[in-house]
């Protein structure tokens, strides 16, 4: 109402209000305790539903006085309770109100109040605490600073329905990290709260349910415990299933589905369990339907996306359930054109949720299309799907951008889509733009999508290269984040695969040998593997090998020796031996190996290694070196014979592994010819 008033008038009204508010505060200081009580009650009635009044009282310093009264034993039970009620009312106001309350150290005072014997007072304190903790501005850590608080709250769970409701609510708003989960778990939260699920009060049931959902989230320990909990002789999962029945309130269905989802993702329930396949999944799909509220649809889609993310069978089932893919298309129609004109309120509501809806839909599409080609096809065939993703990539909201990239990433796993719709819609353009300066999480997703777009059969490869992807990717390899480094080098590897000479040289130049060496000693084995892969891709086709080796031969040989000497797993060593084999395929490059006794000894060693893969790679390398019809093959053959390679090859022809045996025989033939 105030905003409708003229400015000068508003000020005068405000000063009037302040004056009247002062009267309330003054009465708190009355020497007569009875009058103080009456004053507090009047204040209570004055502030209910009046944010302005609340702000005024806070400004006028009512809070410290109320807290003082509340903490004073001499105040009397009634007065203390009324103080807690007024403080609770004040906390119901704006975020600023809550902030000022927290700044006045309301939380310790209230927690202290919980130790009282008076149930009414405890309830008032809990209610106020709850209201304070619900607010996002309150640091939840305040609940955990005193170790005695949580056990005491647990003990209050048996006092009354109100204490149950408020305590559970506090728990679920203050359980934000795995540490919090563990603290609550260790204090017996599960046992204490489980029986509240069958409480006769709906509010208590709901808060208990929400508590379990936050406790189980990504927490295998809690989840494993939960599956074995019995409530009134019934397994907890069955209680949740019953709460998902269609005639139960939507909020309850949704939260129960969340609990089961989290338990499933934490590995406590199998993904092919009937309570997931036949109950949770359909329930979440129902939450996505048009009949539900926008918030519920967002929540439903996000939870479903989380549930089906790792399991292709669940993805398949979800994709056919209730036309989910088509249903999600509707998420993009907000704010609808109708609402814009007819109903301002609804437009506002729609606008508020539009981003959330879009990102939820993208997330779910991403999960749906993660593994199954048919589902990806169905998604892309949805009306305007690619356009939506493209515009989603450049939306202002980071959440939407991230979700859109995730969706694009999922879809980019399809060879067919890469060749068709991705090309038609030039998705690389917004993607490249996104990569320029995006937060890390977006960058990870975007770069890994880019990896797929740079696969040699992708028609987007050319334009991406032209738009300066090499420099961008090289800079990614210098990132702090291992995920980004992997993606950067991976993309370069894909780029180098069967590429032309110029691109390879560009990559080498942009990356610089120093960086290459740095990457070869990267602590992340994935980075190392992809770097070796890049090297291997660079060193293919004879002229390329020779040219690269002539310019960087020395460093490369050094790096190879280093890795072969180092403690690495078999895959890394195999990859390295393959690089040697590639080098051995060059014309001039061969000499780099032949003159390096060290490397030859290494090869010899790996030919006699216990691992067949390494033997194979080493033999391959030798066979390249002694290949006939090539200049100087005779000398090399002689030299290697001297080193005792023939004997080893001879031994290998007796190998039980057929491919190794073949390879050795081919090599031997070079000598015989």
């Amino acid at each position, binding site marked *: 109402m105030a905003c409708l008033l003229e400015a000068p008038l508003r000020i005068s009204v405000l000063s009037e209000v302040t004056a009247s508010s002062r009267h309330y505060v003054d009465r708190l200081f009355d020497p007569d305790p009875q009058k103080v009580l009456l004053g507090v009650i009047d204040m209570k009635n004055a502030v209910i539903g009046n944010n302005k009044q609340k702000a005024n009282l806070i400004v006028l310093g009512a809070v410290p006085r109320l807290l003082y009264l509340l903490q004073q034993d001499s105040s009397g039970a009634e007065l203390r309770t009324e103080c807690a009620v007024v403080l609770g009312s004040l906390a119901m106001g704006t975020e600023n109100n809550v902030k000022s309350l927290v700044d006045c150290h309301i939380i310790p005072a209230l927690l202290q109040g919980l130790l009282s014997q008076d149930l009414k007072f405890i309830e008032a304190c809990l209610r106020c605490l709850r209201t304070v903790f619900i607010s996002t501005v309150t640091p939840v850590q305040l609940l955990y600073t005193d170790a005695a608080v949580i056990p005491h709250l647990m003990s209050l769970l048996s006092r009354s329905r109100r204490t149950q409701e408020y305590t559970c609510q506090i728990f679920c708003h203050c359980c934000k990290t795995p540490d919090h989960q563990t603290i609550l778990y260790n204090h017996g939260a599960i046992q204490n709260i489980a029986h509240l699920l069958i409480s006769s009060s709906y509010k208590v049931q709901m808060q208990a349910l929400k508590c379990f959902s936050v406790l189980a989230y990504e927490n295998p320990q809690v989840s494993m415990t939960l599956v074995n909990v019995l409530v009134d002789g019934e397994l907890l999962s069955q209680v949740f299933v019953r709460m998902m*029945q*269609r*005639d139960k309130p939507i909020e309850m269905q949704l939260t129960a589905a969340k609990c089961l989802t989290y338990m499933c993702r934490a590995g406590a329930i199998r993904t092919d369990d009937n309570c997931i396949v*036949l*109950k949770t999944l*359909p329930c979440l799909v129902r939450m996505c339907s048009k009949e539900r509220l926008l918030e519920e649809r967002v929540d439903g889609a996000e939870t479903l996306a989380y549930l089906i993310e790792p399991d292709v069978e669940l993805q398949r*089932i979800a994709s*056919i*359930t*209730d*036309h989910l893919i088509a*249903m999600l298309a509707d998420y993009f129609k907000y704010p609808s054109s109708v609402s814009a004109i007819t109903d301002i309120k609804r437009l506002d509501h729609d606008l508020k949720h539009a981003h959330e809806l879009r990102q939820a839909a993208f997330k779910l599409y991403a999960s749906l299309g993660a593994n199954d080609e048919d589902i990806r096809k169905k998604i892309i065939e949805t009306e305007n799907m690619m356009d939506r993703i493209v515009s989603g990539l450049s939306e202002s909201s980071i959440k939407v951008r991230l979700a859109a990239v995730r969706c694009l990433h999922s879809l980019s796993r399809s060879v067919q889509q890469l060749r068709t719709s991705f090309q038609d819609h030039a998705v690389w353009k917004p993607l490249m733009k996104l990569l320029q300066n995006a937060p890390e999480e977006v960058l990870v997703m975007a770069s890994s999508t880019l990896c797929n777009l740079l696969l040699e059969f992708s028609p987007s490869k050319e334009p991406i290269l032209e738009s300066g992807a090499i420099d961008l990717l090289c800079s990614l390899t210098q990132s702090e984040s291992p995920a980004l480094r992997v993606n950067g080098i991976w993309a370069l590897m894909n780029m180098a695969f069967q590429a032309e000479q110029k691109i390879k040289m560009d990559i080498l130049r942009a990356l610089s040998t120093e960086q290459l060496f740095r990457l070869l000693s990267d602590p992340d084995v994935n980075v190392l593997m992809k770097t070796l892969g890049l090297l291997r891709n660079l060193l293919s086709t004879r002229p390329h090998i020779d040219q690269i080796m002539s310019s960087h031969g020395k460093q490369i040989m050094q790096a190879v020796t280093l890795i072969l000497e180092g403690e690495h797993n078999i895959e890394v060593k195999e990859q390295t031996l393959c690089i040697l084999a590639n080098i051995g395929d060059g014309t001039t490059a061969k000499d780099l190996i032949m003159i390096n006794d060290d490397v030859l000894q290494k090869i010899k060693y790996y030919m006699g290694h216990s691992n067949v893969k390494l033997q194979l790679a080493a033999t391959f390398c030798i066979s390249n070196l002694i290949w006939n019809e090539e200049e100087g093959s005779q000398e090399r053959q002689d030299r290697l014979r001297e080193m005792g390679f023939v004997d080893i090859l001879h031994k290998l022809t007796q190998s039980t592994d057929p491919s190794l045996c073949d390879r050795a025989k081919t090599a031997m033939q070079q000598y015989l010819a």
Partner: protein
Amino acid sequence: MSGQASGCGSLMSVVVHGDSALNEQEKELNQRLRLLYPAINEQETPLPRSWSPKDKFSYIGLSQNNLRVHYKGRQRAAKWQLAEFVRVALKSEAQILSTGRIGAWKKASCRLIDVNQSPEDLGSQTSFFPGSGEGDSIGDRAALLRLVLLENFLHGEQSNRPASTLAAWSGPKHLAQDKCSTASKLFTGAVISVKESAVAAESDGFEVCADGRRRAVGGAEDGYTGAESVGARGLLREPVGSPYSTRTALHTVSKNYTKPLAVKESHGKTPKDAASVRATHPIPAACGIYYFEVKIVSKGRDGYMGIGLSAQGVNMNRLPGWDKQSYGYHGDDGHSFCSSGTGQPYGPTFTTGDVIGCCVNLINNTCFYTKNGHSLGIAFTDLPPNLYPTVGLQTPGEVVDANFGQHPFLFDIEDYRREWQSKIQTQIDGFPTGDREGEWQMMIQKQITKTLQVSVTAVAKTIKRFEETGIHEDRTRMVSSYLVHHGYCATAEAFAKSTDQAVHEELASIKNRQKIQKLVLAGRMGEAIETTQQLYPSLVERNPNLLFMLKVRQFIEMVNGTDSEVRCLGGRSPKSQDSYPGSPRTFSSPSMSPSHSANIHSLTLVKSSGSHGHLAGFDSNCSNGVISNNAPNQSHCHKHQPSCLTTPDLNSINNTRSQQPNSYTSSSNDVDMETDRCSNGVSELSSNGFLNGSSKHDHEMEECEAEMDIDSTQLRRQLCGGSQAAIERMIHFGRELQAMSEQLRRECGKNSTNKKMLKDAFSLLAYSDPWNSPVGYQLDSIQREPVCSALNSAILETHNLPKQPPLAQAMGQATQCLGLMARSGSGSCAFAAVEDYLH
């Protein structure tokens, strides 16, 4: 007994076993259907329980209790074989007729079977029943059956020579007497089914044969496995890969089969090959939510299965969905077909092993499918009413099984039902109600005129009226009027006070009515009539029929021993009867020490004084009932005295009849008396008898029987409270009543209600124990209620007050409305029971 025959035997035992399994299945089905569709009255609207053998295209074959559907195709290639079959059959028939020996007959039948085995190898004479000696019933039966089939075969669909004739020429001649019944049973089954199949099979003689044979056995043994056991395989060639070929029965037969019939290859190529079958009944609207599932046993060659719904009269030579009023979901492409030849992309494809469910929502007239328990989303909207579950097949080898509730469903349909139930309940609860009575009336008017489009809200309007009390003026008025109407004056007073409502009637008047009602309900009719005449002098005068009714009731109460006039004679404490029990249904019977002899005594007394005409009314009625004897009655007797079946004559039935209610009286004595009276019975009333009474009578008998257990344990009651004087008074009163009735007839013309009333009342005297007699229901205190309300209404009417309380009217209206909704196809009625709103 050798291999083949014993094979048959074991198969039959399997069939018997299957029977018990079937019963179990049937029970489960009934249970599930009741649970799913509580609002359904199956007498009015039966639920689909199987596929209809009548409503199918000939390419479709049914089995397993008409739940399994398989594709047969045209089967025309066997024509040449048919000719062969006929030739041999004729020959063997002639042989049988000429020899007249059972051995020869058997031999002939064996030959017949050989024909099936291998048409070319006619002379080989491998015996089909190598070990079946004389008197081997299986062999005989099978052979006989063969003959019946042959007969059907020969005459095809045009003749359908009655089986009895067939039995006449074949049965007595060749079979021992004890086998005769078996034979005739077989024949009946065969012919009935052949007739059916003839209709379905168009002009394809072979089809008739094959089907006829199958069902012939089905009729006798309930299961088609029997048909196979007899060796029908040769003729009824099943598509390769169908489950039938995997059956072990008589593999030898099919092994010998050298010439495969190359027929089916042409099938399934064109839509012309499509064939559908629908369920026996359409889906009743009162189901609210209807669901059935179909399991794809085999997708056959191409998997062109369609599952859906169709209205009556839709062409069965099509897949569901192709024609008008037909809807289907097809397995080959996963498309949905909504009365159109071109489908819309709908769901995934389906194939062997999948279970497809179809759910019809009769509230919003939509339909969705499920696959393996997962909902696929809405497929059709705006469905018409009265659709039949339908499946269609198009290529050889396609086999599907239906589940109409025989087994648990894969999809959680109960959960879906619950959702809709709560939706409708919320809708009713949240229905806005107007403030004034006028609005109510308007709504009700609208409701009546627009009944055909009644939606849930319309019913809600009415139901809502009972649901709350107190806030709205009209509702309070309704409640208070209800209270006033029934004379609950204290309550009404309190209610009126608390709601500031004016009661439209003076309290004194209410109290008067209350007093009269009390008297009536206590059975003190004499006093009640007196009081009425005192308080409302003109009422009974203007309403002679009412008076008559009251008087008849008084007579009944006299018999009961509760009427004041009789009671004072009986000298019982009036207090015990004074207060009407809180609930009218908990009638406490006047308990007096029973005396067997007294009973007999009173009976004889009645009899002796009963040269009186009325008494015989019962007797004629009794014998009448027996003569027009009817099945229920007999089965009724059967339950108690199976021996009476052997010589069912009038006397024994009479005996059992009278015995059932009076199982404690010595039967010989009783029978003597009864027969005595039977011969005695001459009266004016006997002539107009109970021609229509028989069925009613049986019903009452059953009721009596149901109550018998309880009654026999109770103490006996005596006529008119057991007092001699009272009985005399009653007889006298009866005469007066008779006179009054005659006078009434003279003045007002015939009145069948009155006549029936009087006759029923007098009939009471005909029984030794009227309370347990077929007319004994009249003595129940519940019967006072209609009299009471009639009197009450009449009094109110004279005061220009409504005859019926509006609350009751509204309730009746709502109940009727729900019934109408069910008939007019509005599914929401399934979830809106009036009772739910009466607290």
